């Protein structure tokens, strides 16, 4: 009898130890999450893993460089290179556009010549998007600061109004804007950097009138009417 009680005690103590360790782990994880955002439960997309745990980590600690490799310690640290750069909240934690415009970096535009000025093209494209989401504003000027026309046209984007089907799903999977945004250029977690032109009050009112909410609250409206007819 006594040995049976002891046997159960061992079980209970072991379980407590396991639970205790898990709670400690969870608390410390939550702590790192809290340090980054006020509400880790409500980050942009819960299907994405939590944001980077260490920003601009030195090569030997970044998880991709092998600390055993003799060259790893010879590499420059990102944080070392970024000390004078304007900060941003995502990607490399660097506002690349701002430091380029401010002349803090002067990257070559052409392989053959260090002094060639970029060929800039100042055309802003506004893409109307579904629902109440603000429209997308695409500035060619900022993109031609870095890129050549041939980088995007015609392989990624057909230069014709209405010819390009773009969705956030495609972008998240690395197509269209996602070829760069989400890999090298600023990631898509900051919606308003692209969705920058809010819908007008009239458009928002028209949307509300078309929605089911407006219909169910008004009994005289025909419920079977197609919601999207213009």
């Amino acid at each position: 009898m006594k040995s049976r009680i002891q046997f159960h005690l061992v079980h209970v103590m072991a379980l407590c130890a396991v639970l205790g360790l898990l709670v400690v782990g969870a608390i410390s994880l939550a702590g790192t999450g809290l340090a980054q955002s006020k509400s880790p439960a409500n980050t942009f997309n819960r299907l994405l893993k939590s944001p980077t745990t260490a920003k601009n980590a030195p090569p030997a600690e970044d998880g991709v460089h092998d600390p055993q490799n003799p060259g790893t310690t010879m590499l420059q640290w990102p944080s070392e290179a970024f000390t004078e750069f304007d900060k941003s909240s995502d990607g490399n934690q660097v506002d690349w556009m701002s430091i380029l415009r401010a002349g803090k970096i002067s990257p070559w535009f052409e392989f053959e010549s260090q002094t060639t000025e970029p060929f800039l093209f100042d055309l802003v494209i506004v893409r109307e998007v579904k629902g109440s989401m603000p429209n997308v504003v695409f500035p060619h000027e900022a993109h031609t600061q870095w890129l050549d026309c041939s980088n995007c046209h015609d392989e990624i984007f057909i230069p014709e109004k209405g010819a390009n089907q773009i969705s956030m799903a495609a972008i998240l999977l690395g197509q269209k804007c996602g070829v760069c945004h989400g890999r090298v250029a600023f990631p898509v977690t900051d919606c308003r950097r692209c969705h920058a032109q809010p819908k007008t009050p009239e458009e928002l009112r028209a949307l509300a009138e078309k929605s089911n909410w407006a219909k169910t609250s008004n009994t005289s409206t025909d419920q079977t009417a197609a919601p999207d007819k213009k």
Partner: protein
Amino acid sequence: MLGRRTIVRLSLVVAYVLIAVLCVTSLFNDNEAKAEYGDVVINNYSDAAGMRPVVFPHWFHRIRFRCKVCHADLGFKFKAGGNDINMLKIFDGQFCGRCHNNSIAWGVENCVLCHSGVPNMKTRVHNSTSDRLVAPVAK
């Protein structure tokens, strides 16, 4: 000698401790998420040739060159591992070899500066949005 029950008890305790350790380490084992944004690991041929995979730091090159220089003038495609680069092409002055030739940048004899990745890593852009999706993209 130890009784049968004692052995069962001990093995149960060991099992609990192992489970606990595994749970806690899996919570913290998120090293790849610390990779600098835009770092590309290229492992088309490296592992098979007994070299560490290549880690290409976009941020370092971006300070010095606009995207156009490599992606238009030098012909790098926007695809991790999609350029089929090998050392022969680099010796021949193609791709990385256009600059890494001891005239614009240090030369190819500095193997360990590029071949610096953790062995057996997959070719991809680390820390990218599609990389961070919990459900992996169907290949």
